């Protein structure tokens, strides 16, 4: 059942590692999956590789899925919705990820609560992280076509972060598509303070099509050249919530 060439130990190891990493694809992936069914030792090699690489996910943000996902699952397996999972914000129990949970809690806050009455809820959010992976602030905005005076909200996650003395922070939108994603300034932002940044008619389409936001550190009165000082100190990609 097992093709001769798969008996070679080094080849088996290599395929097992690339399967676990995800780089085995197409027909090779399908063939390998079929082989694993008949070759428990191969399945174990893959298992060991999955364990080796698993810590890579420890640093990822935990993000609570919307309740509708659970509702659909319980409908599909026919257990009824009477077994509601408790909809508490801090439902996850990974103590060691306390640092990352800040951004999760924040996303949930943006999603379910604390919305100003006059404005539709935030539809998109970008959690900006430092180079060490700590969440510092979040930028969010409602569907821009549904509001009269489009703006983004900036919410502080880590109030202790501040620019170096004599420097300022400048917020940049990273637009997709035309213009090859050249960062465009949305102006300077104050550290440690929640704020609302009004968008001009030119900025609205950039934000609507943004794939991310970033903050650079500039001289006290902002970037003179119209381009950010690299590298960005914080950045994050946009995630659609609705």
């Amino acid at each position, binding site marked *: 059942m097992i093709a001769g060439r798969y008996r070679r130990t080094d080849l088996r*190891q290599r395929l097992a*590692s*690339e399967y676990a*990493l*995800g*780089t085995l*694809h*197409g027909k090779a992936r399908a063939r390998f999956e079929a082989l694993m069914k008949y070759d428990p030792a191969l399945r*174990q090699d893959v*298992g060991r590789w*999955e*364990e*080796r690489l*698993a*810590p*890579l*996910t*420890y*640093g*990822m*943000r*935990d*993000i*609570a*899925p*919307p309740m*509708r*996902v*659970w509702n*659909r*699952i319980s409908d599909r*397996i026919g*257990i009824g919705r009477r*077994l*509601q*999972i*408790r909809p508490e914000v801090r*439902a*996850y*129990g*990974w*103590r*060691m*990820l306390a640092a990352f949970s800040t951004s*999760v809690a924040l996303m949930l806050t943006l999603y379910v609560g604390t919305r100003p009455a006059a404005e539709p809820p935030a539809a998109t959010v970008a959690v900006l992280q430092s*180079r*060490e*992976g700590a969440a510092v602030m979040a930028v969010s905005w409602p569907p821009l076509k549904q509001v009269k005076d489009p703006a983004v909200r900036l919410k502080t996650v880590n109030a202790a972060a501040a620019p170096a003395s004599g420097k300022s922070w400048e917020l940049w939108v*990273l637009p*997709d*598509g035309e213009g*090859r*994603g050249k960062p465009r300034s949305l102006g300077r932002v104050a550290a440690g303070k929640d704020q609302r940044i009004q968008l001009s008619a030119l900025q609205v389409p950039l934000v609507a099509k943004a*794939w991310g936001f970033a903050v650079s550190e500039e001289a006290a009165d902002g970037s003179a050249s119209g381009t950010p000082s690299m*590298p960005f100190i914080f950045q994050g*990609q946009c*995630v*659609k*919530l*609705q």
Partner: protein
Amino acid sequence: MDADTNDRLAMLLGQTGIGNHRAFADLYRMTSPRLFGVALRMLRRQDWAEEVLQDCFVSIWHHAADYAADKSAPLTWMTSIVRNRCLDRLRRNRPEITGEAFDVAVDQWEDESVNLVQSLSATEDAAALSRCLEILDRKQRQSIALAYFHGLTHAELASHLREPLGTVKTWIRRGLEKLRGCLEGES
């Protein structure tokens, strides 16, 4: 992962395997934020991530009895189910992504392999992986991180890193070999 959490998850999976609804609900509550985070990061689309998470938990409900506690940690087992489903989803809709839009998205990932090493230290196995990633060449580390986090194929990696396909394949292969040698030395 701490031992208590592991034991609890293994117990919940065992109960799920014999059709215990309450255990399955608890399992979902404890693991779905992690698994949803993994899926969102790989897919970068909320609708796809929700769909994948839904399919995976239905699959976990039906296959929980197949889980073997002696072979892998519960969360690793579940994460692999999610990762594999994400890879299928990505490759169904994105047979091969190259070009401008891809470059833009990928700029942000450049430094990920650096942050990676800094962010890994919370547990013993994470610390070992972190030490071993550090001995890899930067290119090897970067290709492995891009493949793992974003589900890139060899060809996509080659296009993004602007290197010949063969070179990228070699980085991955040698990087993984080196990683295994190092991790086996650590344990």
